[in-house]
């Protein structure tokens, strides 16, 4: 029996030599991705995962893990296996080219024309 400085350990009567069966696969359940909203009006942000046996427990653990401090108004959880993702190896699909300036606000510059027009009207 452990002789500990910790009264809780002594009360629990724990053997010092207490080999146990190793944890089996799935002992810690599957994982859920957690999305957290700080305040109304904000986007929900991905903040990490929890291990849980079902969605109710996942919400409970997510509240403890990610909503313990600071602002929180809402949490979502979704099973990791239900999330579809792109590959980082394919991140070139997001590349753009200078010709696509037509879809940017910066692609439209009119002051030159306006100033030129004003000058011509004055003249």
């Amino acid at each position, binding site marked *: 029996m452990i002789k500990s400085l910790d009264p809780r350990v002594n009360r629990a009567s724990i053997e010092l030599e207490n080999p146990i069966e190793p944890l089996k696969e799935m002992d810690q359940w*599957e994982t859920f991705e957690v999305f957290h909203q700080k305040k109304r009006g904000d986007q929900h942000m*991905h903040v990490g995962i929890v291990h849980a046996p079902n969605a109710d427990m996942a919400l409970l653990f997510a509240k403890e893990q990610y909503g313990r401090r600071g602002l929180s108004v809402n949490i979502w959880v979704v099973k990791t296996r239900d999330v579809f993702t792109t590959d980082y190896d394919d991140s070139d699909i997001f590349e753009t080219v200078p010709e696509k300036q037509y879809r940017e606000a910066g692609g439209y510059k009119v002051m030159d024309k306006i100033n030129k027009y004003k000058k011509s009207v004055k003249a």
Partner: protein
Amino acid sequence: MYGNAYIDPNEKAAGILAGEDPQKLAEFEARIARGEKIEPKDWMPKEYRKQLVRMIEQHAHSEIIGALPEGTWITRAPGFRRKLALMAKVQDEVGHGQLLYSAAETLGKSREAMINDLITGKSKYSNVFNYPAFTWADACVIAWLIDAGAIINQVANAKGSYGPYCRALDRICTEESFHLKYGHDNVVTLATGTPVQRKMVQEALNRWWPPIMHFFGPSDKISNHTEILMRWKVKMATNDDMRQQFLNMYVPKIWDLGLTVPDVNLIKNEETGKWDYTEPDWDEFKRVINGGGPCNAERLAVRRNAEERGRWVREALNTAESKYIVPLA
């Protein structure tokens, strides 16, 4: 709270890169040199994955085991407010363990495998937690100075190259600042209190000084791994540099309180700008980290007991349709 990952200095560094695709390796190193993060499904050298798993896993175990010496004092903390604060701190430490296990999992080692390696003694955890907290003052010194050391290490590592580890550390560092303030407040209360309280905190500091000096790990001069781990931004500062940073920040604060540090050789060398100190006893460090410390056996027995007594609950909640896949980030 955590010191540095312990790597056996005798382990061979040669052959670390054997069999790696040179082009992929060059791209990987260029990405890190540009300051970009590595994400879980990216190509990475075997040694990078191995060292990160070891480091993050040790860090996670340290949070879980570190809750034990402090948890000792929850029932005996002086006053209701301190009890609540200590419970909050211990809950934070366990939460940090969860965040870190999650980060390590993204590298392919399951949480079950990590817990199994902890409770059989195969994995290491921070050596300081193999020492007992004799008095309330010990718990205060741990909360102030061990957490201070942990912050130095974690702030450095949060700038590392592995995305999931950095994200976990950012969350952790925010909470550690409460631990540090809480610990400092407790130490200041004792040090500015009655002669009995001052004596108590000085004795605790004397007990904890050697483990604190061990905290950042052996001098890097004897490690084969330092260079490549720093190039890969797995390690962000040498053990000696972090120890110097700790001394620089906290020795003056200890002296401010009229407490003494139990090392007659401790002095800031005006020429080098660095602290001189008595070389810590690294044989003692090795003896304790390999199982010979006063609390190693107790810590693991308590952990095994907790896993075993909770097992039926975890099994009862499990459903046949559950299926594990590696977390995304």
